[in-house]
């Protein structure tokens, strides 16, 4: 009998679309209060975040970049990329303090964009947490660097989604300029992560909603594809495994996305795409990351509902490997009953540990 794999070995196997010893587990975005309930103490340093991943026996340890600078004005804050946010205390761990809801972008015109100075991707403090985590647990866990809002999403937030989509039609060279600046930022940060020894990179960029991509496939091919193809190729050339996150229905542009060369796609959002069908159609080309509904099941279901749903997704999606189990977006805290929610999160991971051992029979 083979020895149990390390979380890192398990992550590699799944992302190479093989069968590990059991289905790996992945979470990357958790609200502070959720992490604190799990580790029973405040989240202050990266070791607290690492303990969260260890306590739930997740296989990936996602560490966002740090070194944020922002200007706080009342209960809003202006970040380094010219974007204004509504402060939400206890927002996603590791995001800059008070990360909350988007209010508006301040770089609404070419003139404003040209006046603006982009932050330094490798400013002091950017990679400290990642390096600490890598040294502490990187030989055992799949420590994962995160490129947030990597290209399109930040461009759209800086300019405003509606206006940015319009600029693609009315001022394509400006749209390209904004995308290129963000691509260059993400590329440099990504390379710096690899220089510190990162083996796994998570790219986050919401390209779509439930209906489909925000932009037509033609606009996507002109404006988005070239930057992503190059970013992913640069990361993969150095041996990294790359997981891409986008909400929404990506089917209209899925072949193009797969052409980038990514290893995993997250979260295959319920209501927008069907993870079971997706695995059937695309599982030979990419690993799927997701499967546990966080909108209704985890906040509102009974523990029995959670157990049944997790067993169900394991039976239907995990056979043959190439599946990493995770929530369908993030472990946010917009829930009416935190106690129930935490119990459900524990039940989800415990069920996965109990029933996720390979071989798994299809059904």
């Amino acid at each position: 009998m083979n020895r149990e794999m390390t979380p890192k070995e398990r992550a590699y196997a799944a992302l190479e679309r093989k069968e590990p010893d059991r289905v790996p587990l992945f979470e990357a975005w958790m609200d502070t209060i959720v992490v604190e309930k799990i580790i029973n103490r405040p989240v202050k340093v990266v070791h607290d975040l690492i303990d969260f991943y260890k306590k739930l026996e997740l296989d990936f340890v996602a560490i966002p970049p740090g070194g944020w600078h922002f200007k706080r004005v009342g209960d809003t804050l202006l970040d380094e990329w010219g974007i204004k946010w509504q402060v939400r205390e206890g927002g996603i761990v590791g995001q800059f303090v008070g990360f909350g809801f988007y209010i508006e972008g301040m770089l609404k015109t070419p003139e404003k964009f040209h006046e603006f100075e982009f932050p330094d991707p490798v400013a002091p403090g950017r990679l400290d947490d990642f390096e600490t985590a890598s040294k502490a647990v990187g030989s055992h866990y799949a420590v994962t660097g995160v490129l947030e809002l990597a290209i399109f999403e930040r461009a759209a937030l800086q300019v405003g989604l509606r206006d940015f989509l319009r600029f693609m039609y009315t001022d394509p060279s400006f749209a390209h300029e904004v995308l290129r600046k963000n691509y260059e930022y993400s590329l440099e940060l990504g390379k710096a992560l690899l220089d510190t020894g990162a083996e796994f990179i998570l790219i986050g960029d919401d390209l779509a909603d439930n209906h489909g991509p925000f932009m037509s496939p033609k606009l996507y091919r002109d404006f988005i594809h070239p930057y992503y193809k190059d970013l992913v190729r640069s990361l993969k050339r150095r041996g990294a495994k790359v997981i891409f996150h986008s909400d929404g229905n990506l089917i209209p542009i899925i072949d193009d996305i797969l052409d980038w060369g990514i290893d995993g796609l997250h979260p295959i959002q319920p209501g927008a795409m069907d993870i079971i069908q997706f695995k059937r159609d695309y599982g030979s080309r990419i690993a799927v990351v997701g499967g546990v509904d966080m909108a209704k099941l985890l906040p509102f279901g009974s523990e029995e509902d959670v157990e049944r749903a997790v067993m169900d997704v394991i039976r239907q999606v995990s056979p043959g490997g190439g599946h990493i189990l995770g929530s369908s977006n993030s472990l946010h805290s917009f829930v009416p009953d935190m106690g129930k929610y935490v119990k459900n999160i524990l039940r989800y991971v415990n069920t996965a540990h109990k029933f996720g051992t390979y071989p798994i029979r299809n059904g």
Partner: protein
Amino acid sequence: MVEMTAQSHLDRLKECVASFDADGLVKACREALAAGITPSTLVIDGMAKGMDVVGAKYEAGEYFLSELIMAGETMTAGMKVVEPLLKGGTYQGIGTVAIGTVSGDLHDIGKNILAMLLTAAGFDVIDLGVDVPADRFVQTLRTQKPDILAMSALLTVAIPEMENVIRKIDEAELRPKLKLIVVGGTPLTEDFAKGIGADAYGPTAVAGVKICKEIASKRETIK
């Protein structure tokens, strides 16, 4: 120069909207008006038909948010020519919809798409924005007297706020003046909507506009 028929003017307006040709639309509007086509016909049977094409293509997955936005911008350019001539005229939308995302929620993409599709369908839209307190919904109902109230939420915790808004509307006895209260966002359900006293539930913007159109067509005009 061959004189265009009224229908060919209207077809030209429709094509300009559907192909996002703002300059062409402005020119076509001026030519149509010069040819004697009334402003309201120009809007309802010309430009709005172009938006119908756009809406149908969006529904069919041929057009995306980028195209809805361009079509909206094109229509706005045309409306700038026509609107001054509509004031005090006989043009009326097929109904008025007040729409907003409830207090505690800042998500707006679905709401904005619905607002665009409603405008395209011929409704007058009062867009209250996001994070709208209950009192503002009530005040809007009182002062602007819309026919339909549409509320959006994406966050499950913001959903109880919808019940709060409906309760305040009932307390203020403004419900009889409303033809429809419709709520939306994928996290909601039909049962929930009925449970809080809403009349209808639309999981998507496209479903929402269908519901509003149905109510509008049940009467000859709903004004």
